[in-house]
């Protein structure tokens, strides 16, 4: 299963995904994490700037990731009951 790295920005709580160089607010920008997942996660935890960093399972292809759990799909799209607050990088329709 493909994994991507996600977390929440300390200052704002924003939901973020790791794009290979920096954190993005768009899941579409996420990169697949390979064998470097564990050290990358350890690095993020030690830096203490991203809360709850975690590797999650996704299907799809780069630019079109779809988390496998409803919880992560909700995080990526926004509340399913407030389409006006949707993040735009993933439609609430996929929840």
């Amino acid at each position, binding site marked *: 299963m493909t994994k991507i790295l996600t977390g*929440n920005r*300390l*200052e*704002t*709580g*924003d*939901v973020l995904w790791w794009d290979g160089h920096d954190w993005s607010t768009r899941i579409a920008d996420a990169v697949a994490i390979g064998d470097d997942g564990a050290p990358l996660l350890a690095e993020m935890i030690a830096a*203490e*700037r991203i*809360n*709850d960093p975690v590797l999650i399972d996704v299907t799809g292809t780069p630019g079109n990731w779809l988390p*496998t*759990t*409803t*919880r992560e799909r*909700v*995080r990526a799209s*926004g*509340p*399913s*009951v*407030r389409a006006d*607050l949707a993040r735009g990088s993933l439609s609430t329709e996929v*929840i």
Partner: protein
Amino acid sequence: MYRYDHFDQAIVDARVAEFKDQVGRRLRNEITEDEFKPLRLMNGLYLQLHAYMLRVAIPYGTLSGTQMRMLAHIARKYDRDYGHFTTRQNIQYNWIKLDQFSDLLDDLSKVEMHAFQTSGNCIRNISSDQFAGAAADEIADPRPYAELLRQWSTLHPEFSFLPRKFKIAVIASDTDRAAIQLHDIGLQLRRSDTGDLGFRVYVGGGMGRTPVVGKVLRDWIPVGQYLSYSEAILRVYNRYGRRDNIYKARIKILVNELGIAEFTRQVEAEWALLEPLGLDAPQAEYDRIIAQFADPAYDLSAPDTLDLSDPDFAVWVKQNVHPHKQPGYAIATISLKPRRGIPGDASSAQMDVIADLAERYAQDEIRVTHSQNLVLAHVKKADLYTVWQALAAADLATPNLDLVTDIIVCPGMDYCTLANARSIPISQKIAALFENDVAQQQDIGELKVKISGCINGCGHHHAGHIGILGVDKKGEEAYQLLLGGSGAEDTTLAKILGPGFDENGIVVAVEKLIARYRSIRSDPSERFLDTYRRVGADTFKEAVYG
């Protein structure tokens, strides 16, 4: 209503300054998230699925217009223009930023509000009857006693690290509008044959993972001694509560493991030591607080009649207006369950409208109900039509109090990191079946549907006439169906009816339940709950599962 004295304000100011310093240290990486997390939780700040969530305390659910206007300001300035009123009579904001949090706390403290003890293993916001001080059926206003509990429990050093969270509710009527038997401590104010006031004390009630109906610990404790008696209960719990297992740490588990007789013996023994120490408030302090909850200056010449010639107004009055103890006045409930809405949510513009109405027409008081609605407790009947028109213009006049579309719902997996399933969409789909036909809703009658997105039970599913619990079934959302709960004076716990459903299946099941109820009720006045109690579960099982 109660106004802070300089002690109250000094406590809030000191705590705000302390937490602002802690926030600054976290933002500068001087403390880790592991160190910061318990500090922010003790100040009501959670990290949820999309952002930080702040829960602001509303003691016993009472607000002034100024306070409501500040809640609107916070929604507008620091959040996304709305707030969510909760089943603990509080308000939550879902999109808070940590780097703006210090300014937010300053704004809150300007109107005698804060967020501490809305999380953590401490005594939480004291809840009460939303009709307190106005209800025709109460023997006295219970809020002075709730306020004294608030003062006693605020930053209480001995009870800041309890085995688990602790919830207290206070009422003063035989009609229970605060679910006191489902609290860690439930207090019912009563009057003796000789005219004295005292409390019946329930202990060990609660919902969540292990739902339990509270037991009567004492049938009578004089009002002058309820504080030391409460302290004795907390001491026994603090000493022996199960700190080794979070799922067994609530007082209800201790009461069940010891048995009510032994638990009572231990509390009485502790109280015998405590009571002589003079912990209870002097009469002057009771008098000072009670005076702040004195009745407003009623217009004694206010007419006690209503013009119900507008049929839409008449429907709203029938459903959402209750008798007031003062002739010429009424209690109006503002439904936060509009068509296609999210239960408990209010926009900042709506909060401003309610603040204005409270100041102009309701003695500057607003109440939050545990059913996620709001109340204007003192409205002249002569002003009621004007109030209704203003509410209707703001989509706040849905006439559905206690009907099938007045659903209690937790935020569920649309917001909450603990949730296993979404709950708001389920409520919207159930409401959609009935919300366009008020007459049909009224024909169905009182029907309390309550939905939680996880076993923690913030949506009170165990107290629902129809309860729904969201669960995780191999990564998919699923829903259990429960029947027969009540959080009123006839408290019972709902029981699971049978196998669970998917999102659409649970909605169909509820529709079938209601259809079966209407076909078998003894007469139109028999409530769903009463029919269930009369005939049992089998016929409803047959209706749902075939």
